[in-house]
């Protein structure tokens, strides 16, 4: 079984290397549909090598070092071969093409778009500012709506709070899993979902950000809660306080400042995300940007890009300053 696994791994990695070498030698093959066929002879060659020659990359992964130390020669370099072949495989699947990058026509296109971006058309500035205001407020509203929910949920997502028996433990695990799933789904996907649900516009964008913000802030908040000094918890419990009082008087005062800091940073992140979300129907400056980009009006796009950069940079500076002051 292990042997088979090793051979399969060899086949995959080996064929990648072989294909790469061939492609470097004969770059014209890149554009041809026969390129994938190269994989077949490469695979056969590597299976042969693994079976008869003992040159196995796969064995690097399936056999432990103590079991069998790698001998000299080819085998001792298997790690490097695996690493290089990954780069090679990556080169192929990403369609990396220096020829395209430096081709005369390509460079001309780049010159055109950069030229347009650096000669912005300021007629759109009014509309752009309006849209920017929408984006900033979308992010702000998403943050404001998400904060109270995250605050409440974070206690249920903190290991040191959920100590009341099996049912709390189960709830904690389920909540953590749900939050991880919510966080793993990029806001842009949530934006697509909500733009169908409530229609294209800032509201859909806000909802998408709310979901992602709840997931992210709850995680950050709860990690902060898990980090609090246990002493005040004991002291407040010892006065005969109820659980809610213990949370409020022993945990919250220790967390307020970090929570504020996380929240401001999250708003900052949300402004950037709100821009991206606009591309898929989340409203604001992102939507405006896709519109002008679709019309190939790159001078107008230039104005929007400058405005976005300015606002994001400003917010970044402000939020960094505020967080610094809070520390």
């Amino acid at each position: 079984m292990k042997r088979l696994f090793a051979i399969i791994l060899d086949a995959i990695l080996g064929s990648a290397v072989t294909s790469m070498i061939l492609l470097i030698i004969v770059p014209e093959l890149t554009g041809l549909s026969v390129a994938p066929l190269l994989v077949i002879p490469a695979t056969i060659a590597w299976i042969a090598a693994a079976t008869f020659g003992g040159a196995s990359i796969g064995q690097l992964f399936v056999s432990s070092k103590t079991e069998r130390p790698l001998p000299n020669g080819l085998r001792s370099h298997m790690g490097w071969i695996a690493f290089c072949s990954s780069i090679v495989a990556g080169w192929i699947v990403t369609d990396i093409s220096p020829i395209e990058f430096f081709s005369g026509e390509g460079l001309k296109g780049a010159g055109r778009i950069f030229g347009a971006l650096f000669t912005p058309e300021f007629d759109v500035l009014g509309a752009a500012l309006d849209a920017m205001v929408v984006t900033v407020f979308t992010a702000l509203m998403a943050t404001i709506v998400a904060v109270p929910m995250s605050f409440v949920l974070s206690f249920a997502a903190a290991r040191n709070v959920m100590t009341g028996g099996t049912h709390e433990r189960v709830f904690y695990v389920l909540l953590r899993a749900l939050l991880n799933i919510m966080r793993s789904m990029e806001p842009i996907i949530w934006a697509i979902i909500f733009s169908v649900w409530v229609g294209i516009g800032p509201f859909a964008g806000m909802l998408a950000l709310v979901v992602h913000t709840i997931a992210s802030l709850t995680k950050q908040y709860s990690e902060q809660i898990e980090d609090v000094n246990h002493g005040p918890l004991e002291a407040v419990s010892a006065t005969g306080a109820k659980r809610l009082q213990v949370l409020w008087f022993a945990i919250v005062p220790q967390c307020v400042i970090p929570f504020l800091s996380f929240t401001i940073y999250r708003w900052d992140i949300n402004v950037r995300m709100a821009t991206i979300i606009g591309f898929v129907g989340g409203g604001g400056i992102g939507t405006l940007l896709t519109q002008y980009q679709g019309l190939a009006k790159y001078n107008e796009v230039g104005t929007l890009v400058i405005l976005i950069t300015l606002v994001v940079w400003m917010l970044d500076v402000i939020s960094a300053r505020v967080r610094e002051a809070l520390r």
Partner: protein
Amino acid sequence: MSLLSVRNLSHTYPNGYKALDDISFSVEPGEFLVIIGLSGSGKSTLLRCLNRLIEPTHGTITMNGQDVTHVSDAALRSHRAGIGMIFQHFNLIPRHSVVKNVLYGTLGSTPTLASILGRFSSEQHQRAMEALDVVGIAEKADVRADALSGGQQQRVAIARALMQNPNLLLADEPVASLDPATSHSVMDYLERINKDLGTTVICNLHFLSLVRRYATRVIALKGGRMVFDGQPIEITDAWFRTIYGEEAMEVEIR
């Protein structure tokens, strides 16, 4: 009748470590009981079992004739509310003012919502100031707790415990993070509370000189078992080596 009675108390931590092994003793009202023993001998665990910050694995604890080992949440809270506790690291809420910290001693008898909204009665405020007066730092009432020195913080913690009008005061190594002079000042306040207010005190201590000076009775733990129960004067060199090991040398704090 004894104020507190502990019968066959054992505690085993989830990792299997047996911190307390079959401890039995009674405490009479008005005693100043000191528990001694090496670090890890179970002193802190024992103290925390008494107000059930740590759940005993076996045995019973009876306070004022009532078994408090197997009681509901509400009864447990009222049991805790009757016992003040102070800690080695004071455990104040650092960002809050001194007087607020003292008011938190009344949480057990204040409705949740009122307390969260910060609505403590004027009577409670008045008692908080009186408690601060007892420990001599009423003038610091509006200062943030973390702006105080260690000894001052421990006095605020004592004031917080006094707000509970406790029958019993637990002190878990109250002077272990303080310098010698401050240690005596804090111990003096505990003694005054014990003598003037008649509050029973159970206190974990490290220094035998302090034990001899303040205790009316001493219990010694070793490896989770009780190895001594008697008067401070009875702790001879032989007992000292039994409790702290053959290699031990007494260090004094004056």
